[in-house]
């Protein structure tokens, strides 16, 4: 029997131990975040299952405040020694700091937590390696069923069970459990001059309802289409962006840029192109964006944020008008806006930042296919190579459409290689023409496919 993820009572015990240790060390203001994560993964290499991983990870992040001076510490062992060391080190660091005149204390739990169903599914926890192997094989088989030319260099099926707890000296004491199942496959087709780019496709769910066959088929389809290389030209034209190209956590253009641009912290510091524009009509009528962590069963949903503040639905953009930003308690306090329950802890750097929990681009109607069919000439951007280098302060970007496909007379007719897409998110969002209803859950974003007018394409 493998080691299990810590239960909710066990995580609360750890947090209580932190509290006791803080009292012993005469620390009156503290905040603690404990996480235990059990990951099972089956990896794919060269079309075959190549290995199985089993990872149990724990983490405890503590912040203390001594006379307005805040210090933090982290350890990865849930024992008494670890909790005491965390408090002791955090106090040492706090004593080296200058007093923060903006400090208003760790937040209290001012609202009841919302009920957010569908975050935990036992069937995800009970998935074992043989079943996950079969899922991986089904995904690969589905990709290869599209064409014999398709290969799958890598991929994975991953199940996660996680217990998260938050406690502070202002009365927060909260714990939750969640599960997530993710499937990822990368397909390539062709060879030599006609080789496709990496065609990644993925899916995420809180339960076992992932259609791995569909994920494999989509990756295989896009790889196969990308081998028919056609010439692109330098022009401004209509472009359909796939949900992945806009919403993927680390590479989706809108998720990468808007997560930073809508953060109250960056607004407060003036390093967002959206600063000072609240109330302005800035984008197309088709653009409505919420931060919505309350949706049932979504991967970004949760009842409270990483400071233990109740999560809420926050309207950010309403039919093109910028209505608000997301705030953590510290920056919400100093800006006078208050927390929107959007604190996210970076356990590597120890920072607590404001960011959307689940950026929801509101869908309209139709599928990506219907957006494609509406174009006489244009492009389909499936992935954004280099979107992580976008300038999140200015909104400027310049990436390679990869995979990028040419649309003629309402159909995808082949792939284009090396077509650069450049511009600024603000200009681009003014030119949203249609929004699909084909929403994909990327965890931190819920994104449909979108048709943009007048997108700059550059080729060699």
């Amino acid at each position, binding site marked *: 029997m493998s080691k299990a993820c810590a239960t909710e009572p066990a995580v609360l015990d750890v947090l209580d131990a932190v509290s006791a240790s803080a009292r012993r060390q005469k620390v009156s203001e503290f905040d603690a975040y404990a996480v235990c994560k059990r990951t099972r993964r089956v990896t794919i290499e060269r079309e075959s299952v190549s290995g199985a991983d089993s990872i149990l990870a724990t983490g405890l992040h503590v912040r203390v405040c001594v006379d307005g001076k805040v210090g933090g*510490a982290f350890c990865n062992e849930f024992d008494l020694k670890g909790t005491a060391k965390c408090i002791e080190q955090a106090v040492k660091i706090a004593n080296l700091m200058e007093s923060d005149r903006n400090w208003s204390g760790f937040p209290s739990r001012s609202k009841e937590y919302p009920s957010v169903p569908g975050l935990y599914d036992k069937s995800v926890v009970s998935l074992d390696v043989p079943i996950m192997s079969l899922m991986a094989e089904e995904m690969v088989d589905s990709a290869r069923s599209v064409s014999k030319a398709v290969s799958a260099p890598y991929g994975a099926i991953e199940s996660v069970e996680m217990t998260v707890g938050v406690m502070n000296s202002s009365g927060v004491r909260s714990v939750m459990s969640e599960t997530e199942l993710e499937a990822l496959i990368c397909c390539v087709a062709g060879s030599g001059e006609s080789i496709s780019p990496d065609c990644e496709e993925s899916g995420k769910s809180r339960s076992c309802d992932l259609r791995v066959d569909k994920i494999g088929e989509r990756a295989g389809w896009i790889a196969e289409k990308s081998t028919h290389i056609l010439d692109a030209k330098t022009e401004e034209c209509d472009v359909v962006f796939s949900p992945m190209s806009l919403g993927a956590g680390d590479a989706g253009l809108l998720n990468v840029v808007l997560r930073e641009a809508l953060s109250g912290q960056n607004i407060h510091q003036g390093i967002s192109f959206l600063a000072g524009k609240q109330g302005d009509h800035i984008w197309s009528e088709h653009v409505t964006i919420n931060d919505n962590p309350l949706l049932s069963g979504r991967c970004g949903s949760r009842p409270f944020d990483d400071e233990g503040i109740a999560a809420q639905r926050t309207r950010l953009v309403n039919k093109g008008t910028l209505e608000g930003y997301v705030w953590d308690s510290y920056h919400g306090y100093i800006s006078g806006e208050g927390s929107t329950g959007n604190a996210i802890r970076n356990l590597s750097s120890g920072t607590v930042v404001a960011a959307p929990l689940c950026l929801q681009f509101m869908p309209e109607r139709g599928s990506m296919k219907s957006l494609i069919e509406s174009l006489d000439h244009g492009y389909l951007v499936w992935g954004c190579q280099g979107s992580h280098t976008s300038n999140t302060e200015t909104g400027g970007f310049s990436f390679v459409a*990869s995979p990028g496909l040419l649309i003629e007379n309402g159909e995808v007719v082949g792939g284009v290689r090396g077509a650069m897409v450049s511009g600024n998110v603000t200009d681009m969002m003014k030119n949203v023409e249609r929004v699909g209803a084909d929403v994909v859950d990327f965890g931190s974003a819920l994104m449909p496919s979108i048709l943009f007018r007048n997108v700059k394409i550059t080729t060699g």
Partner: protein
Amino acid sequence: MSTLLDYLLKAARSRVVSGLDYVELRADDTVQTSIELRESSIESVTRKFECGHSARVLKSGRWGFAVSDGMNTVSETITEAMKAARALSQRAVSDTRLHEITPVKMDIRSKAETPLNEVDLAEKVSYLTSICRNTTKSDRRMTTTKASYSDITGDRVLVTSEGTEVRQSLSHAYLKTGASGKASGQLVSARDEIGTVTRGWERFTDEDSGDKIVERLARKMRLQMDGVPCRRGTHPCVVSPKVSGMLAHEALGHLSEADLFAAGAFNGLEGSRVASEAVTMVDSPWIEDGFGNVTADDEGVVPKTVTLIDKGILGVQMTNREWAARLGIEPTGNARAESYRVPPLIRMRNTYFERGDMSLDELLENKKFGYYCVDIRGGQAESNSSFQVSIQECYEIVRGELGRPVRSLAISGVATKSLPLIDGVGKDFDFESSYCGKLLQAMPTSDGGPHMSFKKGGVVFGGFA
């Protein structure tokens, strides 16, 4: 008191490993200090203690991997990895074998003159505060400055069932600074990165004093503020060592990692001409102050320099032991893991183009119009050899002379078409230190080379709006 090595050796010699083809145990016991500043205010200071281990086992030709925190359950972790390998379906790969190596016993000590863990936190904070304060002061149009610093010290240990024992004392430090400002109503930004995996605090005080970082940031910011937009399309260009390094990394480097080569655009071109005779490119385990320096890789292989392009001819691939066995070549020592929490992958170390014989003036001359790309923000490669590199410092070239600065832009190309269009290689050399991402693992690498020039058609320019 038992050391990390003791814990792993005890488990590696226990009955639990019997019946396994191969067992690889890795453990870290580290302390990380992270400091985040904006303006001259400290946003957070955190000290992170991390101790844990992992087991990677090969059982009947199938891999199993397990991770656990702390050091008290190593035998259980091996059992967990073995069960995972055994539970794979019958269709899973079962012919995995490793290239044989001679097991090594190494104790790799840090060469830090001023160990990072012996420097007061207050001194580190003061160093960063002065960078932020002086950057803001350098130009009244500057609105925000920030600094993110982290260092890691401690022990990393590798033990294998074949008898390899490697202990390393870590001394990693990385500093990323950034500045933002407004000019003519437009937001602009620039950033700077430095790091070390071999030296101590002297890396920051001797060479990259705070003043030098401020000077670089301020220069890049002014260029952004005063820059003109780039002309979209393809143009002749000259690239600096930092940019040529990024091209080495993105255009061919990733595709020469054996696991990516197999499905990449260069597969089948081994021994063929892919660039002019002036072009030689290597991946080296050790250069002076290299951020990708490796003394033994994370499979215990003593690393060697790999020639990826030899005078224009496509050379060999970077391998781990598994791919070396598959390809029938010697392992190159490129197996690297971010920490004990993840299995090693084939990764670059210090990747660069070798020097040529031309001066910068010679590279610039005869270019009626083009661009001189100097500094980068990051980039990405694809299997089809498409590359994208974001540029934060760039100038026009007009009739062989440097002209106006150019605002942020990105360059791209397809390496199979771009490499043959390199028409000049400089005689200087420099490199950049940064983190490279692959399958969610961030690994320190250096990328460098001399100045180089490309004919029109080699590189496409797209401007940020």
